[in-house]
């Protein structure tokens, strides 16, 4: 015979929510949640009612109105008659451009410096330590402003290139002009261009670019197939056929043929009027921001990489050395793949930091999302709350996308335990 000491189901009393330990923690959590939500509800309601009192009901209609201002760097068509929404989009693309450029450069420099800091060469290791410590211990805004000032003050103005005996000349076979307004590099041009297709009448995408990318991917796919075939032959016969020339040809020949067919040539910058015309123009605001963000974030990435490498047990490199691998192959085949598992999670936050730090662009007049939507648009329309909330949402979306991609990559690299 058993006696039950549990209270019977039917005798639930309201006071048990507080006095019964089974329910108490849930009660507290629900009360806290309600309090938390009502606090924010009160803030929001208060904001909206006060704005209404000022006659400024929250409204996003301004996005459809004509912007009226010009933006110097635009990756899509934009003029002063375009809407504020399009101006925001121009800014968003500029943000993404500098973020992508910055992340790639920071990773390359960071990995290089991180590995070099572990070098047995005292000089190299100390130089890298000095780099890391100087860059990561000074606010990134200072670096951005410093780079900008250095570009403006130290490089020649475009009119220095003028005259029979100019003070400044173009570099690299007269094809690159480095001025204090930015760098002009040759641009690819197609004399028999395929033209553009417009997507939803909002964006034009160059068909040339699509064609080149398509041919390039087809070539890479073909090269991969050839390699797999070579692997299969090696498996079955033990002799590996020589395919390197066929794999090179399958990638490069179609691309070269396509470029010839499109009439590919380079457009060189030339001094005309006040500025250089032609070529691709990289403004010094972009260069300063890109360099500063990359070098600053690279210092952090270097430390992450160093930590990752040190986390791989010494026995791994000794074992690899015992197998007869050389130093650089030990690093690339044994150490780095294992170190990646330690490196990737903190690397994600560095990418996010870099992207968010790009909002300091306004310090050098780079027209990113903060400059257009949360800068000029905010000022011309007076819609502080709407523009800032919209801007925050967009940054949130960018950051979450980066996290998602990097988490996917992290899961792929993770140690598969059996």
């Amino acid at each position: 015979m058993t006696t039950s000491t549990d209270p019977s189901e039917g005798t639930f009393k309201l006071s048990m929510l507080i006095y019964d330990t089974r329910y108490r923690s849930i009660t507290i959590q629900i009360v806290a949640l309600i309090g938390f939500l009502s606090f924010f509800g009160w803030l929001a309601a208060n904001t909206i009612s006060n704005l209404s009192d000022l006659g400024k009901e929250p409204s996003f209609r301004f996005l459809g109105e004509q912007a009226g201002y010009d933006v110097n760097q635009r990756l899509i068509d934009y003029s002063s008659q375009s809407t504020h929404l399009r101006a925001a989009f121009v800014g968003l693309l500029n943000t993404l451009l500098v973020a992508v450029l910055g992340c790639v450069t920071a990773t390359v420099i960071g990995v290089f410096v991180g590995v070099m800091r572990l070098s047995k060469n005292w000089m190299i290791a100390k130089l890298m330590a000095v780099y890391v410590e100087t860059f990561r211990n000074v606010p990134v805004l200072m670096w951005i402003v410093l780079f900008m000032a250095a570009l403006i003050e130290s490089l020649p103005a475009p009119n220095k290139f003028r005259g029979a005996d100019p003070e400044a000349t173009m570099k690299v076979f007269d094809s690159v002009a480095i001025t204090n307004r930015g760098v002009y590099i040759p641009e690819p041009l197609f004399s028999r261009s395929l033209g553009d297709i417009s997507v939803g009448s909002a964006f034009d995408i160059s068909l040339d670019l699509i064609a080149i990318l398509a041919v390039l991917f087809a070539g890479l796919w073909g090269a991969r197939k050839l390699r797999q075939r070579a692997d299969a032959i090696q498996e079955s016969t033990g002799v590996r056929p020589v395919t390197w020339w066929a794999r090179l040809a399958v990638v490069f020949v179609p691309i070269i043929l396509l470029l010839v067919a499109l009439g590919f040539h380079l457009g060189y910058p030339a001094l005309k009027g006040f500025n250089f015309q032609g070529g691709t123009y990289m403004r010094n605001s972009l260069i300063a921001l890109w360099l500063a963000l990359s070098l600053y974030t690279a210092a952090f990435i270097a430390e992450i990489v160093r930590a990752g490498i040190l986390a791989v047990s010494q026995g791994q490199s000794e074992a690899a050395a015992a197998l007869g691998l050389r130093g650089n192959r030990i690093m690339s085949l044994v150490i780095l793949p294992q170190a990646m598992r330690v490196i990737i999670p903190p690397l994600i936050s560095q990418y996010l930091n870099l992207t968010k730090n790009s909002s300091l662009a306004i310090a050098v007049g780079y027209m990113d999302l903060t400059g257009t939507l949360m800068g000029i648009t905010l000022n011309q329309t007076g819609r502080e709350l709407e523009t800032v909330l919209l801007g925050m949402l967009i940054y949130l979306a960018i950051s979450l996308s980066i996290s998602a991609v990097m988490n996917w990559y992290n899961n792929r690299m993770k140690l598969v335990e059996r």
Partner: protein
Amino acid sequence: MKKSVFFGALTVAGVAAGAAAAGTLDDVKARGTLNCGVTTGLVGFAAPDANGEWEGFDVAFCRAVAAAVLGDPKAVEFVPTTGKTRFTALASGEVDLLARNTTWTFSRDVDLKFDFIGVNYYDGQGFMIPKSLGVSSAKELDGATVCIQTGTTTELNLADFFRKNNISYEPVPIETNAEGQAQYLAGACDAYTTDASGLAATRASFENPADHVVLPEIVSKEPLGPLVRHGDNEWGDVVRWTLNALIAAEEMGVTSANIGDLSASAGDNPEVNRLLGTEGSLGEMLGLSADWAKSAIMAGGNYGEVFEKNIGENTPIGLSRGLNAQWTDGGLLYSPPFR
């Protein structure tokens, strides 16, 4: 920047209702100081001198209002604002009055919910270029790189001007006047554009002002005036009539030199008497003391004196009165009557 704007926006939400209801005049009197929004530094209009004392054309107006309300021209807390932060500062109640060469436009008056209380300087947007460029008209600036202060009407005027003349340009947005100056002097932009008065003030601070010229084209109307929050009419009246008092004083020949005699006892000119409080009760109607206008004029002199001292032809800035002369001298300054 993002942060300050956001907190500004939140502050708008939190403070504005209270500020609007309480009455700025009472707030200022209770606080004992006037919070006045000025530029972050534009020589002649508002800039701290070597001793850290703010001085300039806009600053003098702030001091006149402080003198009228509190009887002390020194009772001013100057709040430096950029083109981008100024409206948030005013809307949130951080400043009681914005005297920051701000252009009076329809959308600022109506949509941004501010009250421009008058015009203290009639200006227009111009271009400054180095003389060595050999350009004599703004229409020759096709393809030029132009530095502009972002968050101003100049940005929109510039886009309109180049569009109208069908010429291209490359805008370089900058945040403050000092930054623009640095870029312009280094040759990173061919031309610098802002209000003609601002150009003159900027040029005056150059090492070799003579190497730079302001082009003759004035591409816009820029009536610059002090502004207050919409909806507080008592405070708006105080600021409006302080400006009118300075203008009227010049018209009636009341200067800081003779104001002592004129205000000692009622004289022959009834309007001067009413202005200086020796007759009538204009000060009381405003909720101020009877000698409010006297204090305002004593703070820095009448409009003409303030102009000559800060930006006039004998200063390094060297602006002529032009449109800013009294209507009796062919200018646009015209104060409504004091009665």
